[in-house]
């Protein structure tokens, strides 16, 4: 395990990270992007983890020291097709009145109660005008207000209206702004006074769309791609953080779409980004075996977003496929890797 820390004035408290006890998985992690979801439950002193294996996904809960407590496996709902349906992503959605777990696959979208015990909703993908050479799948999950948004292979984003309780979930809208498959979706509560949340969707061409959520989602900014897939995306205080297939992390202003920071962060495609919003920390992970931590801030002079490198971690011989912070202050994070049947954990000393 190799750690590299940048020079410069830094909060020494988060400079060094050590490897904590791993959590074993029943099945190895699949080589997908964004293949780790974490639900922090500090009140109950629990952390939930979700990892996709292939035709199944594993949910497990762990105590603070990483001691696994309970686990459950979910399977993709079968439909027509030759091989078993593969899951593309699993993600917890924290809505104002409830927490739901969403699972996307090559057949459709499955929505569960947060512990995965009960499926409350199933949406089958509509082949529509898919040509035989296109693989159908749902991918990209985020919640915004009382909506859950899920991306699809065609570029359409499905918007589901979620009631405060019960299974009466309704498909309320289909957003059609992307020409190619959706890769990831992120959201955060809006900064303005009108209490509308912001959301960003990303696709295989690298195009980013920023939306204002509401009964009807409104496209507010379009940030063109440059021929490289945007594999993972995050939103923080009016800034879009986007990770790309060429190993770059780029930060854009949501209101203008202007590029303010470009980081040559990784030597392979980025597979995951995560944010600790309370402290403005960004985590980037890639197939090059590295996980990097960055500190976002606003320049006092220009007001533009700036970034500095905090920490780098090498996970030897592991093609990382998921990375998430495990606490709101960004003091600990977890990592998954292709073919690895454990969740690796790191925390600052």
């Amino acid at each position, binding site marked *: 395990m190799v750690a590299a820390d940048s020079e410069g004035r830094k909060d020494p408290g988060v400079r060094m990270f050590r490897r904590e006890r791993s959590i074993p998985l*029943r099945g190895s992690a699949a080589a997908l992007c964004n293949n780790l979801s974490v639900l922090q439950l500090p009140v109950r002193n629990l952390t939930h983890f979700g990892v996709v294996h292939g035709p*199944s996904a594993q949910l497990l809960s762990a105590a603070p020291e990483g001691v696994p407590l309970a686990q459950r496996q979910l399977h993709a709902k079968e439909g027509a097709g030759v*091989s078993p349906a593969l899951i593309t992503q699993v993600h917890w959605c924290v809505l104002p009145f409830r927490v739901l777990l969403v699972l996307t696959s090559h057949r459709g979208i499955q929505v569960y109660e947060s512990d995965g015990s009960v499926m409350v909703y199933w949406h089958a993908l509509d082949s529509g005008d898919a040509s035989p050479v296109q693989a159908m799948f749902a991918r990209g999950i985020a919640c915004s207000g009382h909506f859950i948004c899920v991306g699809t292979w065609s570029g359409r984003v499905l918007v589901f209206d979620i009631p405060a309780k019960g299974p009466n979930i309704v498909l309320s809208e289909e957003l059609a702004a992307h020409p190619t498959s959706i890769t990831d979706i992120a959201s955060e509560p809006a900064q303005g006074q009108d209490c509308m949340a912001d959301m960003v969707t990303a696709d295989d061409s690298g195009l980013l769309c920023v939306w204002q959520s509401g009964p009807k989602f409104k496209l507010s900014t379009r940030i063109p791609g440059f021929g490289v897939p945007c594999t993972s995306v995050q939103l923080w205080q009016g800034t879009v953080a986007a990770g790309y297939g060429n190993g770059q992390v780029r930060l854009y202003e949501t209101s203008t779409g*202007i590029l*303010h920071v470009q980081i040559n962060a990784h*030597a392979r495609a980025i597979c995951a980004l995560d944010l600790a919003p309370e402290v403005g920390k960004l985590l980037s992970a890639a197939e*090059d075996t590295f996980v990097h931590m960055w500190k976002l801030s606003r320049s006092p002079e220009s007001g533009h977003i700036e970034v500095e490198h905090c920490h780098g971690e090498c996970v030897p011989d592991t093609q990382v496929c998921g990375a998430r912070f495990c606490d709101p202050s960004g003091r600990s994070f977890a990592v998954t890797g292709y073919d690895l049947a454990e969740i690796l954990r790191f925390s600052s000393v």
Partner: protein
Amino acid sequence: MSVRTLPLLFLNLGGEMLYILDQRLRAQNIPGDKARRDEWTEVDRKRVLNDIISTMFNRKFMEELFKPQELYSKKALRTVYDRLAHASIMRLNQASMDKLYDLMTMALKYQVLLCPRPKDVLLVTFNHLDAIKGFIQDSPALLHLVDETFRQLLEIYGGLPAGEFHLIRQTLLAFFQDLHIRVSIFLKDRVQNSNGRFVLPVSGPVPWGIEVPGLIRMFNTKGEEVKRVEFQHSGNYVAAPKEGSFELYGDRVLKLGTNMYSVNRPVETHMSGPSNNLASQTQQSIAPPNPLAKEELNFLARLMGGMEIKKPGGPEPGFQLNLFTTDEEEEQAALSRPEELSYEVVNIQAIQDQQRNKELARIMGEFEITDQPRWSASKGDDLLAMMDEL
């Protein structure tokens, strides 16, 4: 998953198979005039490779292969290679066929995992095809067939966007997930660890189109760079020298997919399965019970129906090829072969009664490979006659 993965998987695995068979046949090479009736000569070797390659690149077969379709299970695909390996006078027993398939699979897993860019899997495929053309230099008709496949690959994959290649890569890696067989030549070269996992280097050239990590650039509203900061990166990367060629002929630059076996680096016999931990057994425990699904059987029938097996002129014995150097090693390998890697012959009782699958049952019935040093001439004839009728 991507529906365009099968041609890449099949051609690359086929290429690895040819590398291994070629090396093994050379190792057992006896000069023509000194050879006894049951020993391999240079002429035999060339003929075996020729026969397999001509079966592989048969037009009808390629047509089926290139249709957009999902990937089938390892078992189904293994059946195709069983048949391919027997497209000549060569015979492999179960243990040798097992080992051959394991070597092919681990080699391709390594190549896919280490591809710098997802698109580079195409360069790996071209490396295999370039080498295959090297095996059949004196057969212009065969060369033409291979070139046709080359062109088809260029047509289908040449213009695919990066996102599609990402999906193809993910599909291939899903196929190879949880395979950790240790291969001697990989262990020796230190590209594989003793736990069966491949080494992922953090030094060397970055992929074409990627910048060396370590730089942060900040811009103002006008797009002008206002600040430039470097950060420490414990990898040791340098810029990519040049891009490999995606043309019919050209320098591929990438070494993955070229022949790693040679006279000095023979196909070694020591192989072991994954260590006995929970993870390696998960693939079997999670997957639903197997006989081959109906759709897989239909696929096999279609695919192998397109395979034309050449019948050699006149009665001729089939020659046994052994991938192990001694009988003891072979026995040991069979004993120590982990349960989850056993590729049993498909249980044909599971097949529903369908016309197509009756044909398939007939094909399957041929795969009872018995341990004989030499087929009698008549038996060999019957076998080939059966294949011919399809």
